[in-house]
């Protein structure tokens, strides 16, 4: 993973992975050379959504040539438990199954084909039980995965009595399949005695390490997890990469052979959880100036059959229930409902998008009923400097209004609105819709404990540098950013720095690469490590140069010089000298985000290092005969702080936007009443293809002061753009209303072409 030094001139658009990607040399999990003696694992999973296991017949399966073992929960040496937040999820089912796709047995065979055929030769009798797939039904039966959460600000009951307008309604968002293009998988190798090394396609190497240790009944230091990179994650490999890694480790533990498992896409879709679907209720109250005085929300999260990350996701729904708006009186309650679906999990935005959709639906509802544009209500309630969120934190360097005003002005929104009005007046069966979508997203893990990271830096005696952090490269460009941080710290070319794999023996106790915080946390830890080495080097050379003030020694362009240019030494020569003088050229850096705290009992605190803001303007065109639609444009003003890598950051905005639009429009995850996944392959679960993206995506950089808690003041950018996608939904609503002002809008997402058609003629 080294790069050519000449790329330095394009400092602000470094992508160290690009040369590997375009030549096919990038090494993903399934590209690792396999060791001789490798065995292959495969899961036999439940075909019913809820039931008691009555009988398992392995007679045919065990007779298959090339089968090594068929592992059940009884073979687990440690604890049959993979639940991260709450211990409620067995690795392999014991007596009861809770969802279709729940692993029951693990086959270990000589080849993938044999494992596949063995799987087909197994028969299991399961006595079916009643199932729940709807979170509201689960709520009625008090079936929860964790305690309900409440956030409260002011007093909504009193505030509603002062409102001129009050509206109540329901809103619903569907699940979303991650479709990381690289399927889940892992490869375990015996590492001597009880130790096992695991290559895993995970966002959370420590989560894998901890889970494997627990299931094998060994200490964490026996388990080494190594991640070179992953082919997309989007949250789907934050917690749900652990089962497969644990399975191959279990296979290795029991056979003392290398064991590999790469899931087929169909298995991946069946067995893994998705973005949590939500059903919600809202009540919004406004005064006659359209100021929102009170907002109440109840959120029923479809958690699936085990908690996984759903309790934390539930929290973020409440953190973002008022999106970019200041609402003085808020009461929100959220319930993580247990259903017989695969355990749902993290997905870019982590419950935030599901919360934001509800208040946007409430505002749209209110605007329509009052007879004003939703934009008027949105605009009059945007956050200001010092506005308090329902969780007690107040905005600092608030850019909500700035983004909104710039977007409207820079993209000529007033003129556009008039053009759309005229277009709709002159076209009977084709209608256009406009919508604005402001976004405010908090940066940090909402679990304060997780906001820390470490990095390890070695400067080798030839002046080359090796960097290890806890960050996982999954396409978000964090490797490039880490190289930028290290190169910037030492004042040397990118080409002198090699970014190592993420490995639990070099960097321990990592938080997953998630919550948009990876570059901030790991970058700051890396800065700490670099500055320790830098300080030692400065002290050494200061003594040589008889220089008193370390601040007058400058590291720039591969050389080190005194500010007055009286002395100069090349980087390599300096390192050679330091090596001879026995200076420690390695350092471990640590960072823990300052200032943040949150009290879970009062649901108040200062959970976020900072907030990211932005506004997107959507224009869609709906074919009112067929219900088909396309997006003419999405124009965004986004608060990047001071972007450290514009092309990487711009890529995150475009990709996040399109993924959010997919969730809101075309990605329809369907389970039937038996809990069967009906959208179980990529032919019937449609993600945005090259046709369905907006014709125009414009992004303007709102260059702001950034935040000292952002790496090099470059604000986190992974998740915030996903929520722009919500605007796609409301632009379609507005086009529908242009055709049929009396249309029934259900505020159910995704707004598929079918739903558009139904609404047009409702």
């Amino acid at each position, binding site marked *: 993973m080294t790069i050519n030094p000449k790329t330095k001139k394009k400092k602000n658009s470094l992508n160290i992975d*690009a040369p590997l990607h375009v030549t096919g040399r990038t090494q993903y999990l399934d590209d690792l050379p396999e060791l001789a003696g490798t065995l292959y694992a495969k899961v036999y999973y439940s075909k019913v959504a809820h039931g008691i296991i009555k009988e398992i017949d392995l007679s045919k399966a065990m007779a298959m040539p090339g089968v090594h073992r068929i592992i059940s929960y009884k073979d687990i040496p440690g604890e049959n438990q993979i639940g991260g937040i709450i211990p409620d999820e067995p690795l392999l089912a014991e007596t009861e199954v809770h969802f279709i796709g729940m692993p029951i047995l693990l086959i270990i065979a000589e080849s993938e084909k044999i494992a596949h055929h063995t799987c087909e030769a197994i028969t299991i009798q399961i006595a079916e039980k009643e199932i729940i797939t709807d979170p509201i039904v689960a709520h009625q039966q008090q079936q929860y995965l964790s305690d309900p959460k409440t956030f409260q600000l002011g007093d909504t009951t009193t505030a509603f009595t002062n409102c001129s307008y009050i509206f109540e309604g329901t809103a619903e968002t569907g699940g979303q399949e991650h479709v990381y293009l690289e399927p889940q998988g892992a490869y375990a190798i015996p590492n001597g005695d009880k130790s096992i090394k695991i290559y895993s396609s995970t966002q959370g190497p420590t989560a894998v390490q901890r889970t494997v240790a627990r299931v094998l009944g060994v200490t964490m230091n026996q388990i080494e997890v190594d991640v070179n990179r992953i082919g997309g994650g989007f949250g789907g490999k934050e917690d749900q990469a652990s089962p497969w890694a644990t399975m191959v480790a279990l296979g290795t533990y029991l056979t003392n052979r290398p064991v590999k498992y790469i899931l087929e896409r169909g298995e991946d879709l069946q067995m893994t959880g998705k973005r949590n679907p939500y059903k919600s209720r809202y009540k919004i109250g406004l005064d006659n100036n359209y100021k929102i005085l009170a907002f109440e929300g109840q959120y029923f999260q479809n958690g699936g059959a085990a908690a996984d990350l759903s309790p934390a996701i539930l929290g973020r729904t409440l953190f973002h229930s008022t999106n970019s708006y200041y609402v003085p009186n808020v009461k929100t309650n959220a319930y993580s409902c247990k259903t017989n679906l695969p355990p749902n999990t993290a997905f870019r935005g982590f419950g935030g998008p599901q919360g934001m959709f509800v208040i946007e639906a409430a505002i749209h509802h209110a605007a329509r009923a009052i007879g004003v544009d939703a934009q008027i209500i949105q605009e009059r309630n945007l956050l200001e400097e010092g506005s308090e969120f329902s969780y007690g934190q107040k905005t600092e360097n608030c850019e909500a209004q700035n983004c909104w005003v710039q977007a409207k002005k820079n993209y000529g929104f007033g003129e556009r609105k008039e053009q759309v009005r005229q277009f709709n007046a002159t076209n009977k069966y084709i209608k256009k819709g406009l919508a604005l979508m402001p976004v405010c997203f908090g940066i940090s893990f909402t679990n304060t404990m997780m906001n820390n990271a470490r990095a390890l830096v070695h400067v080798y005696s030839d002046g080359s540098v090796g960097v290890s952090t806890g960050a996982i490269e999954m396409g978000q460009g964090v490797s490039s950013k880490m190289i930028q941080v290290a190169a910037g710290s030492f004042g040397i070319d990118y080409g002198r720095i090699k970014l190592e794999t993420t490995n639990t023996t070099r960097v321990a106790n990592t938080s997953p690469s998630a919550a948009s915080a990876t570059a901030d946390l790991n970058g700051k830890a890396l800065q700490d490590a670099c500055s320790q080495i830098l300080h030692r080097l400065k002290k050494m050379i200061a003594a040589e140069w008889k220089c008193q003030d370390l601040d007058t020694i400058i590291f720039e362009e591969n050389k080190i010089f005194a500010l007055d240019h009286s002395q100069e030494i090349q980087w390599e020569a300096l390192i050679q000298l330091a090596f001879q003088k026995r200076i420690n050229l390695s350092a471990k850096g640590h960072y823990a985000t300052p200032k943040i705290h949150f009290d879970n009992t009062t649901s108040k605190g200062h959970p976020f290092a900072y907030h990211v803001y932005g506004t997107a303007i959507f224009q869609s065109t709906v074919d009112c005969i067929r219900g088909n639609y396309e997006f003419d444009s999405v124009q965004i003003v986004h608060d990047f702080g001071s972007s450290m890598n514009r092309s990487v950051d711009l890529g995150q905005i*475009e990709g996040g936007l399109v993924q959010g639009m997919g969730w809101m429009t075309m990605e329809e995850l369907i389970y039937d009443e038996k809990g069967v996944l009906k959208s179980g392959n990529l032919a019937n679960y449609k993600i945005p293809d090259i046709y369905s993206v907006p014709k125009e995506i414009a992004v303007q950089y709102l260059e702001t002061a950034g935040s000292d808690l952002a790496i090099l003041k470059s604000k986190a950018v992974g998740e915030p753009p996903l929520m722009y996608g919500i605007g796609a939904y409301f632009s379609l609503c507005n086009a529908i209303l242009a055709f049929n002002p009396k249309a029934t809008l259900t505020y159910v997402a995704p707004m598929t072409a079918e739903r558009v058609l139904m609404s047009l003629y409702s």
Partner: protein
Amino acid sequence: MGHSITLTVNGTSVTKEVEARELLVHFVRDHLSLTGTHIGCDTSSCGACTILVDGKATKSCTMLAVQADGSTIMTIEGLASNGELHPIQEGFKENHGLQCGFCTPGMVMTAVDLLQRNPNPTEHEIREGLEGNYCRCTGYHNIVKSIQHAATKMNT
């Protein structure tokens, strides 16, 4: 029962024994160790396994290895010559037409076929040419720009 097949892979003649049911993508990855060609979906939906078979972009999970007997195939590993990136590879690199990189080889190989057939495609023709390839990271705009970059370079 093994079948002997002979084909030209990235300019070199290769003869191997394969099973009749062996997919071309597995042949390329497992027998030839050319792991730049990726398996993303198993159902011919995603295009990550696209390679050139006799110059034509082909999802290598839709074809048996024995069907490629006598063919000339090119994978992503064979595209750069003498260390020089092909203009399409350069286009993806320069225009940030990639993020996680998993779809990239398939995208690049599809684009090679597209520009061979149509050296000067419109934006619509580029999109039409890439409709069989999914990217979950980028939002596609930079992929279109990457191919426009390549077309311009190849035409000058």
